[in-house]
């Protein structure tokens, strides 16, 4: 992706009032499945235009937290505010309006297998209404191109796509309605390293060029190293570390130490290369 001539350094505020209220506000969220406690008071605030990676061991409730933010699963207690409104006290109509402003990419893409890729991207546009029909085909191609897919991919069925293309198609669908917040569950899982890095670059450019707030649930250390501005670690039912990668790696916690120990050397090498 070539940098535009007018692109300036720094984060993009989209419109007036940016950065004032946090986009995602989680307060004292508790989640229990029977006797098993997943979250025991999770607090998290994410501001506009941030690219945040959420990590944690298996079973630490990363995906559950994601589902609670987007209104798919009700937490046992606490408050979740998304774009200024409380997700779990919103009416059905409010929740629908809220969901139009977010984009979600599920782990395996969750593309509608009965539709072509173009059909998948068109679906939210038709539901939203107000988009001239003649313009829709062009907008779909723009979305595919933004997700790094060739225009010819639009006519293909999800079953004909490779894993990487499937994820790109899912991104294109998530971007269909110009979301303000993008949620991604394990976007690079199961991709080869080259495709995964290209995917990281795509996410970074969405955040930088379009000012989209991005929350990634991931296990991919390279994603953390290359694009995450902020890393949030879930463990023991709480946020055990939160901040830029360098700060998080310095936190004294057995899980965090074990997680980063193999990569410390590499990270140090990369930062010295970049300097």
């Amino acid at each position, binding site marked *: 992706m070539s940098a535009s001539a007018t692109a300036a350094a720094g984060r993009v505020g989209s419109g007036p009032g940016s950065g004032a209220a946090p986009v995602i506000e989680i307060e004292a969220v508790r989640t229990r499945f029977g006797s098993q406690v997943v979250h025991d008071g999770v607090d998290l605030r994410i501001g506009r235009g941030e690219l945040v990676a959420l990590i944690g061991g298996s079973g630490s409730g990363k995906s559950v937290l994601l589902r609670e933010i987007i209104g798919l699963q009700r937490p046992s207690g606490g408050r979740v505010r998304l774009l200024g409104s409380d997700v779990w006290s919103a009416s059905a109509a409010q929740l629908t309006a809220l969901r139009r402003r977010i984009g979600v990419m599920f782990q395996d893409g969750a593309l509608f297998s009965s539709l072509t890729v173009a059909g998948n991207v068109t679906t939210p546009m038709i539901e939203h209404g107000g988009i001239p029909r003649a313009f829709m085909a062009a907008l779909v191609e*723009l979305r595919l191109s933004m997700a790094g897919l060739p225009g010819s991919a639009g006519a293909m069925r999800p079953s004909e796509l490779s894993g990487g293309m499937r994820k790109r198609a899912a991104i294109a669908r998530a971007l269909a309605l110009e979301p303000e917040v993008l949620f991604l569950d394990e976007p690079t899982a199961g991709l080869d390293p080259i495709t995964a890095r290209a995917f990281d670059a795509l996410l970074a450019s969405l955040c930088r060029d379009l000012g989209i707030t991005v929350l990634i649930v991931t296990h991919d250390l390279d994603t953390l190293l290359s694009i995450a501005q902020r890393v949030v670690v879930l463990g023991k039912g709480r946020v055990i570390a939160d901040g830029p990668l360098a700060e998080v790696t310095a936190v004294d916690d057995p899980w965090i130490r074990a997680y980063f120990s193999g990569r410390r050397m590499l990270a140090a090498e990369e930062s010295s290369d970049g300097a």
Partner: protein
Amino acid sequence: MTSTDADCRLEQGADGSVVYLAGVWRLSRLAELDASLRALGAAAGRLPAPVVLDGGGLREIDTASALLLWRSLEASGVAAGTVSTRGFGDAHARILELVRQRLPQVQGRPAAPARGLVAQVGAACAGLLGLLYGHLDYFGRVLTEFARVALRPARLRTKELFAQFSQVCVSAIPVVALVTFLIGLVVAYLLGLQAEQYGANIFVVDGVALGLAREFSPLIVAVIIAGRSGAAFTAQLGTMKLTEEIDAIRTLGLSAEQVLVVPRVLALVLSLPLLVFVGDVMGMLGAMVIAQQKLDIPPAAFVSRLHEALAPRHFVIGLAKAPVFALFIAVIGCRMGMAVSRDTRSIGMNTTSTVVQGIVAVILLDALFAVLLQALEL
């Protein structure tokens, strides 16, 4: 010359034209923005070059409305590459540039038109031929596996066989009994209406016995089982195919056909005659109820007439058809399950297809039997 609008305004002069953008350019306002741009284009005609975009009054813009803007400019004969920009905020300029760079990839081609009627019929016929060829091929493979099992009976998965038998036979008894009971009832009632007019009430037993044992019971039971077990086979094997369980079986050096298909086919071939027998009995019971209530034939008279009227061969022919029906239903069901491709949609499509194919196959076979038995004078 100047045209004004809340969203965009145009100033044309001898040394080029300036398009002033203002207000909120967002996806939710696309229709209004489209109208504004059209009005502008209609008022202006061809824009004199060079064209400058001025974003001084712009509050918000997103990629969708930026795309609309570039496409409108190109539609009025301005190449996007020649347009210069001024007065835009950093974020807005970046979005405009991002979309401008991608314009060559955005053609706005409408989707390819659907195939014509003739092409559709042709594709359907070719598909049907391929399907039948595939069935034949798979049938051969299943027979080979059966031969292998026959040579070494220890290879038969008895546990799976009994599990399948319980599912396709034992748990099917209630629905089969209910439906055939009702069929016996209805047939006896309709025959009775006619026979009563001639005072030939007792001959209802002849009609019901012959019809049920030879045709209705095997056919109806086979149709029920095609919908019930054939569909279940496709859904079970299709899901296993999708979750790569079948591949796992193959990589363990086992034959998926031997482990999964042979027990299913065998279970169904053994089950269907038994279910047809249940159907025969329940159908006669249904007829007996109507005979007593409507036709004044007491059960004792019904049974003794049944002895005289129903030659054993009719009953045997009905039972003998069942394993053949079962073989086709099971092989179609298993093959459609194995033919599921790598997406969830094809499980649903194949399951539907199994039911349709199973029922059509049963009716075709039944017609074939009728002609054959007629020729043999049975």
